[in-house]
């Protein structure tokens, strides 16, 4: 793997680390299987790219993208909490709707960012090569998000959100407004995914409506890899695990792609990821079964 390929993999891993953190919030903290991500990631890219083309400050454009993602999360949460639509279905509805929304936002299927200033612009030309600057800037954003998120999940409000996901009945009996926490968590989760989309557009120089496909599976893969290499209970370390998982996942993908002997193409990525996630979901169950069989044998 060349140096550029390595930094490229780390960079994309860091961008998707924000997706992984969002997915961790919805799937793990809230226990809300949310596929909105496939729509909110390109939504973030679309909103950010469109605003950049219109000459808006890159940080404001990125925050607006995150805000747009939060709205998408709120739509899914509303469909589920208020109108009792099953969470998976609710999130698929939002995801499909977002495909049209994203086309509307951009006015065409893709937008190129060529001359526009991005959040990266001020850091190019400080002496470091561009392919190192990009992951460094994203790293700073990711570290800030991890610290803030960990602080948040350890607050009284965040603890109530975790309780909502673990045992909603108990949480309500303790006075937690569980519905409100689901809204807040879903907004936060999809806001992070949209922020990832905004950074993706700025590091890659384009926004495209099709970039969202499979985002959720990649995010899940990162969460699962993270949980495997860093099985932590403390909030901060669980979040760091998501980031590490995302980077490791990208490095593994890069390795597989650059090993000609395997003969994988970039377009095989979704298949490989889906298989990986499926295996990761099946394994613990098999282990449980094996364990219970053993227990019965002892009896």
């Amino acid at each position, binding site marked *: 793997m060349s140096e550029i390929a390595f930094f490229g993999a780390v960079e994309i891993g860091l961008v998707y680390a924000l997706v992984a953190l969002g997915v961790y919030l919805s799937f793990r903290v809230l226990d809300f299987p949310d596929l909105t991500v496939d729509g909110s990631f390109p939504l973030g890219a679309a909103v950010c790219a469109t605003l950049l083309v219109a000459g808006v400050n890159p940080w404001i454009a990125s925050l607006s993208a995150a805000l747009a993602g939060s709205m998408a999360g709120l739509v899914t949460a509303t469909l589920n909490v208020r109108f009792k639509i099953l969470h998976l279905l609710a999130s698929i509805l939002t995801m499909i709707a977002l495909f049209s929304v994203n086309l509307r936002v951009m006015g065409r299927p893709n937008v190129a960012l060529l001359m526009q200033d991005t959040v990266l612009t001020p850091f190019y030309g400080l002496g470091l090569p561009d392919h190192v600057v990009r992951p460094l800037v994203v790293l700073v954003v990711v570290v800030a998000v991890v610290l803030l998120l960990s602080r*948040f999940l*350890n*607050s*009284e*409000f*965040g*603890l*109530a959100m*975790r*309780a909502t996901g*673990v*045992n909603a*009945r*108990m*949480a*309500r*009996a*303790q*006075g*937690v*407004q*569980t519905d409100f926490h689901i809204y807040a968590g879903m907004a936060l989760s999809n806001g992070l995914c949209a922020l990832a989309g905004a950074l993706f557009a700025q590091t890659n120089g384009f926004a495209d409506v099709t970039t969202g496909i499979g985002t959720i599976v990649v995010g899940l893969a990162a969460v699962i890899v993270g949980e495997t290499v860093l099985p932590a*209970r403390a909030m901060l370390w669980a979040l760091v695990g998501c980031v590490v998982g995302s980077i490791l996942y990208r490095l593994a993908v890069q390795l597989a792609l650059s090993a000609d002997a395997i003969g994988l193409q970039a377009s095989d990525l979704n298949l490989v990821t889906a298989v990986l996630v499926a295996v990761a979901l099946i394994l613990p169950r098999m282990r449980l079964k094996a364990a219970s069989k053993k227990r019965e044998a002892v009896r």
Partner: protein
Amino acid sequence: MITVNGIHVTFGRGTPLEKHALRGVDLTIPEGQFVTVIGSNGAGKSTFLGALAGDVIAEEGSIAIDGVDVTRWATPKRAALVARVFQDPMVGSCTALTIEENMALAAARGRRRGLGFALRGDRRRHFRERIAELGLGLENRLHDRMGLLSGGQRQAVSLLMATLAGSKILLLDEHTAALDPGTAEFVLGLTRRIVEENRLTTLMVTHSMRQALDYGDRTVMLHEGRIVLDVSGEQRAGLDVPHLLALFAKQRGGEDITDDSLLIG
């Protein structure tokens, strides 16, 4: 003080499985009274406690706690006034969170939850002191996940959690049913102590006639969604388990209990 006026609860209204679970329950419980609740399976005991806690909203009648009409309040809002311990130790706590996180959650019951740390140094110390009072050695396991505790330990911690934030009433729904006799005895003793120390207005559902008479100041029996027996004071003191069992059997046999037959000497 709890004032319940003619509440009705129906599950699955308009469906073939419609169940009229509470059919006009009236009950006034003065401040600090400890009431035990008995009745056969499906009598409506859990539904009644659920109606007090806000899990089910009464479609008719009214419920007031300390003079405040809470009939239409949802569970989280009522939680400021109501503490509970559930029958299933799994239901009443967050198994995936640590013991101290569970305690922090309970300590904020009825308060607005802000962005301050849930577990600050002084709170940790307070939790450690409180849990040490249980005498179970749990003060050294505050960082353990709740799911690692035995059912009895978890019920003991749940009881403690019920007292971490102030509340007007305590609802116990067969909270010792999942425990072995020895542990049940321990948790019941703890219940008595906690209720007395905090002077809580308490309702305790139990299937044990012995417990129903031994604990608390008053016993009510529910049958098919109605209160069919309500004894306290001298009358209750004169009652023993066989009497109660006979009354219980009579109910199950479908015979009506008239007011006269309640005068047991």
